[in-house]
């Protein structure tokens, strides 16, 4: 496992997102009201860039005509064909076990811890007084 420092926490506001590149792979980091999550920026269907998708909620139903609307902002739709992915798990809607996009843990870590490494921060300058987003790959 390698840890990559990709941003300061201030760079991604609640509801915001940022694309980072780690080892030539694009990963989109989302801020879900203070929880940071990451998914591969590539729809498993035909490769649409998920960073351009709109977010919606987890919409489920117990019976026809009845709607449960939960976790707004935590489901993203691919901009190409509208497929749905859970930002927390990468799982698709309807076929969660068969179709998923890779997801990544994103940890918030103090700069003072990071200075001691090991981590990779090719583009970020780490200072001890900042909080950073660290992606594990």
């Amino acid at each position, binding site marked *: 496992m390698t840890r990559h420092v990709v941003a300061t926490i201030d760079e991604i506001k609640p509801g915001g997102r940022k694309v980072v590149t780690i080892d030539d792979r694009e990963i989109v980091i989302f801020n879900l009201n203070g929880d940071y999550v990451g998914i591969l920026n590539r729809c498993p*269907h035909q490769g649409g860039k998920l960073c351009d998708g709109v977010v*919606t909620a987890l*919409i489920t*139903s117990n*019976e*026809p005509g009845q709607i449960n609307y939960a976790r707004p902002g935590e489901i993203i739709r691919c901009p190409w064909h509208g*497929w749905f992915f859970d930002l927390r798990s990468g799982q698709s809607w*309807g*076929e969660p076990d068969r179709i998923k996009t890779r997801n990544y843990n994103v940890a918030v870590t103090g700069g003072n811890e990071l200075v001691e490494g090991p981590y990779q921060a090719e583009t970020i300058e780490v200072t001890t007084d900042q909080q950073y987003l660290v992606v594990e790959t």
Partner: protein
Amino acid sequence: MIRGLNPIDCDVHPNVPGLKTLLPFMEPYWADTLVQRGMHELDSISYPNNSPLTARADWRPETGKPATTLEQLQSQLLDPFGIDIAILNCLYGVQLPFSEDMGAAYARAVNDWIVKEWLDRDPRLRASILIPIQSPELAIAEIERLAGDKRFVQIMTLVAGETMLGRRHHWPIYEAAERHGLPIAIHAGSSYRNPSTANGWGSYHIEDYVSQAITFQSQLASLLSEGAFRKFPDLTFVMLESGFTWVPAFLWRFKKYWRGLTMEIPWVDRSPVDIVRERVRFSLTPFDGPQSEADITKIFEHLGSDELVLFSTDYPHWQFDGNDPLPPGLSDDLVRKILVDNPRQTYARLR
């Protein structure tokens, strides 16, 4: 040859010889009304009498309609093909009258005629309950009137009626069907409230008949999208004379768009392909498939299940010649499933 394999024929069409035949089965008011109005027939144009499709040449009598007597059915189908059980699906036009009450009167008369002239006279026969789907209330009354007779093994409607079959005003009918363990059969045909294509009326019979397969797709999409399968988890739908070679392509298309549109219909929370494989069955004829054994094998591979197809001759409609109604190249195992196992699995009352 299927003789000796105890086939269950799931789509057999006895014909009402004429309206006069039904008068003794009608309440006095309706019998009188039909005479007073000068009505003499209630056939739709789905199967024009002189069309080759309507009756195989060697099953066509010298005069009158085909398949109007038990003796014809026995000598042309039951005996020569060694049919173990035949399900009678009378296509008399009980869905045609705009009057809900008249439709119900016709349905009662046809169903009672089927009991007396057919079911009571040959133990190999079973039948579908015809319903006046114009009125869900009257349709349910007819189901309740007849469900106690176990020789009725399903409920039948036409693929094209006044509204889409998935819509909720039909659901009380499905509730009654599920409660009695009766599948809902959907047969080719129309009450002609709507054009037989989605873009208007065609000019020719061939357009009407070929378009039926598209209407089946629309109705299957309706049942899926409206959530009928979710609402009635123990109800099976049987598509009769629908063809089935379109099913894989339809499901590929439906599933593809479902992935992007689930938000509209979240009650469809698992693959629609799996739902159809579990809950929908299709009669064998007309087999619209290719002719080579290798290609036919592929069609069944694409269906993804060997439990979807139910044997049917579509008697007396002209769907095959000679005495072998099966497409070539089916394995012995698949033949047994189509002829016997799948029908018995589909119809609780045949087990």
